């Protein structure tokens, strides 16, 4: 078998560093760093999920049974911070590290030592952030949006949270610089911009968003810090400051931030759907432009998070119109995905199932997003469970589903082993059903008048909360099952060896290297061949 030969050959010339410290702590290899990012993100996903389980446990029925209100606020705040900055963002950086150099035919990331640093900051940042749980006064409890003046009432945790956010920001910016430098400088000969896989494109755009907004967030939290410790009054009305100013700055960061979490998902889905439809991606160029349009719009719609704050009429009108516009490029994407499937020859392996669920469920989140763009109606939706349902549809059944789809899609390439298709499908159906039991009723709760971020509720909300909690526990358990599936795949238990191509319909450079991907790839600088690529645009 020629494949086995390549495999042995790799082992001889892999030059993997020996020993745990040299291999992992001191690594500059994009694949190893990608693996570290993914493992870290998964650990944070489980931690953030555990907090969510306590939240759902408390909300299982009315009355206070398990946690006190103050601790409940710590749970919701930390759940969000951990999921956003610890799970979803690092997971996408993990994908970027693993796949971008391979997809563009580069030997590694452009700045490998910085790459090591940008990962190894993260465990320290999150140790600092989660340590606040064990301090006097507990963890931050003002919501992940950290609105003053409430956040300034917190104790020591504010300083820890702010420094943790600074570290996360440094990590993200370095990661983004690395992605941009790699894509701009390290493409193999004949890898033009409009031949790059869409995943590479969406990450390029995401990286620019990160560089643009992370410093803004760092500035906002630094002002919180000086307000709290050094007597400034940026956000204190009594000293001539303005509490609403923080919200503007925060959401100027916060809205691009949500696209930072969704654009790479679009990329992953745009890789998976053509593979299993055995048909080129529909509208490649319009996909690129739509992604860029979404990124641009993300900078000019921030105040739709603040319709109830009492903006001037003209401001409300502008932010309503601008926000509605987002549905145009997003709609183009959805239509393109459906057209990609149309008249293909589809098969439904696990990655495809997750990708299709992504398209449907993310679109449901998009619809509720459009509803909330309508400012006068948002006066009702704002800060209720309707928005909780909305952002969990776009972030869980959106971003997280795309991450899981990507793991199933590329794990044969990473490990050299096929995952168990049977277990993967069980995982999918279990998750897809439970996640809807978890989040769909929250639409009803919000419309019926249940505010978000409350530890206890009136008895009229009891049924749907119980449903939601049951769905939550089931969905949580399904992800523990996922750990087991991934573990078995890595260890090669009950699995078969993966071929180099892995998927019948797969195109792109990653499918022309051996499985598992050798420690070093594309070191010869050979031009890529058009026939290996999924998109060879004539534009």
């Amino acid at each position, binding site marked *: 078998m020629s494949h086995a030969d390549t495999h042995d050959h790799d082992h001889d010339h892999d030059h993997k560093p020996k020993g745990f410290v040299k291999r992992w702590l001191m690594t500059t290899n994009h694949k190893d760093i990608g693996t570290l990012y993914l493992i870290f993100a998964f650990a944070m996903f489980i931690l953030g999920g555990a907090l969510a389980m306590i939240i759902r446990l408390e909300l299982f029925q009315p009355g206070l049974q398990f946690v006190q209100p103050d601790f409940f606020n710590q749970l919701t705040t930390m759940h969000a911070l951990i999921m956003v900055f610890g799970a979803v963002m690092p997971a996408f950086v993990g994908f970027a590290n693993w796949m971008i150099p391979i997809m563009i035919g580069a030997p590694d990331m452009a700045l490998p030592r910085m790459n090591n640093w940008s990962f190894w900051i993260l465990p320290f940042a999150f140790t600092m952030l989660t340590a606040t749980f064990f301090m006097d006064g507990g963890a931050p409890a003002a919501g992940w949006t950290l609105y003053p003046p*409430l956040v300034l009432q917190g104790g020591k945790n504010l300083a820890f949270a702010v420094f943790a956010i600074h570290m996360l920001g440094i990590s993200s910016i370095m990661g983004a610089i690395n992605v941009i430098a790699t894509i701009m400088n390290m493409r193999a000969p004949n890898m033009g911009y409009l031949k790059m896989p869409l995943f590479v494109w969406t990450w390029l755009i995401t990286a620019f968003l990160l560089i643009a907004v992370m410093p803004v967030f760092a500035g906002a939290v630094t002002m919180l810090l000086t307000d709290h410790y050094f007597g400034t009054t940026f956000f204190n009305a009594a000293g001539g400051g303005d509490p609403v100013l923080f919200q503007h700055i925060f959401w100027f960061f916060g809205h691009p931030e949500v696209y930072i979490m969704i654009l790479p998902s679009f990329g992953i889905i745009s890789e998976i759907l053509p593979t299993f439809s055995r048909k080129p991606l529909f509208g490649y160029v319009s996909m690129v432009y739509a992604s860029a349009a979404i990124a641009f719009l993300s900078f000019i719609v921030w105040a739709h998070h603040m319709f109830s704050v*009492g903006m001037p009429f003209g401001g*409300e009108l502008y932010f309503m119109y601008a926000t509605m516009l987002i549905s145009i490029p997003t709609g183009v994407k959805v*239509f393109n995905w459906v057209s990609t*499937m149309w008249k293909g020859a589809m098969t439904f392996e696990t990655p495809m199932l997750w990708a299709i669920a992504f398209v449907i469920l993310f679109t449901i989140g998009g619809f509720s997003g459009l509803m909330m763009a309508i400012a006068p109606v948002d006066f009702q939706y704002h800060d209720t469970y309707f928005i909780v349902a909305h952002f969990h549809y776009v972030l869980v059944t959106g971003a997280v589903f795309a991450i899981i789809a990507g793991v199933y899609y590329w794990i044969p390439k990473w490990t050299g082993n096929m995952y168990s298709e049977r277990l993967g499908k069980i995982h999918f159906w279990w998750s897809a059903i439970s996640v809807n039991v978890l989040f769909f009723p929250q639409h009803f709760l919000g419309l019926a*008048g249940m505010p978000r971020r409350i530890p206890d509720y009136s008895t009229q909300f009891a049924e749907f909360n119980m449903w939601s909690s049951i769905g939550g526990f089931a969905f949580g358990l399904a992800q523990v099952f996922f750990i087991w599936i991934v573990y078995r795949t890595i260890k090669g238990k009950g699995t078969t060896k993966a071929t180099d191509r892995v998927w019948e319909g797969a195109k792109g450079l990653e499918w022309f290297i051996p499985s598992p991907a050798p420690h070093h790839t594309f070191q010869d600088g050979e031009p890529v061949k058009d026939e290996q690529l999924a998109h060879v645009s004539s534009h």
Partner: protein
Amino acid sequence: MAILTDYARHKEKLEGKKSMNKTTKSCNKSLLGFIFTVFGLLMASMAHAEYGINLTEGVTDFSQEVYGLHMIVFWICLVIAVLVFGVMIYSMFAHRKSKGVKPAQFSHNTTAEIIWTVIPILILVVMAIPATTALINMEAPRQLDENGKAVVDEDGNTIPIQMEMTIKVTGYQWKWKYDYLGEGVSIISSLDKLSNAARQANPTVKLEDVENYLLDVDNPLVIPVNTNIRILLTANDVIHSWWVPEFGWKRDAIPGYVNEAWTNVKKVGTYRGQCAELCGKDHGFMPIVVNVVSKEDYATWLSGQKGGETAEVVAPISSDETAILAPEATVAEVVAEPIEWTQSELMAKGQEVYNMECATCHQTSGEGIGETFPALKGSAVVNGSIEENIKTVVFGKEGTAMQAFGGRLTESDIAAAITYTRNAWDNTAKDAVQPEDVKKIKNS
């Protein structure tokens, strides 16, 4: 009615669910039984849905407009969803490899791409027009005729509606204060005692026995029906948000800001809402209750408030700008206080005030909750000089959760509460604070 909890109906439904479970128990062993149970629960939820699945139509013109807009956008989304998902699902069944389909190789179609860019733009315009009108009706309300068309004067300009009264809403951690501007009436409105007892970790009252659990207050806001009411919103400590779903809007109450909204309720009744912006520990426990009464009943109620002997009644204040921006400074106390209180009077009153106002953070035991809500038992402030102690309570502590109580509680209440804390638990101060002492520091 979304937020109007009908406890009786809820109970009925709970019992209904119980009996449904009973009927399914006999066939519980089979899978069929399980399916039945799930189905039964689902049905129970459906029965429940009659008062909690959709946005309320509410009781104001604006809320009805919002409801209509909500439904339009919802139906548009639903139609698009059916079309897009329909195509997708059809494709998933028709275009499978297992059916021997050969994949097509097309990768773009300019006509289709133009169509599905232009049509959504048109749909957005269709949504934007009524949305803009609704926004005008909230933010710059004009007089409308019976058909909902704006009335214009001879120059063709629209005429703004006249507000007939103004209520100032102030958010506190965790209660609401309502000032009837120009009337000299103020109300402090907090979670009712029964709900408060039932929501504790080890409740003394079962929440099933509380009517309108967590949606009831001690002193509701009372407003007249069919009246244009300007509502000004601000806050004393952190940001809150005042929301009664039946009125169709929520608006943030922000320290240092005076936000404006308005309403005109068309139907007499009791309407309930909650704070909608995370405002700390007891954010979930500061409901809003508005009693909308006839204009006659309102007039009677108002004069009762003015002549009543409750401590909440304060001297009339003018409704000029300064009063709106800094009413606490202009509120003079008219309640006659005994000159000198005895120690036992102070202690009795103090315990009452402490449990109402202070115990939610500092706890009944005086042990507090961590660093954010420090213990008063053995506290340096409480066991230190009386002056510092009074200052802390009256002016609050910048940058912490300790708020200024000077504008909210009477001097006698503050004196009593401080006396109580200096004597309760194992505290060593063992002295008394008189209302006069508080007054001196307050006016210093």
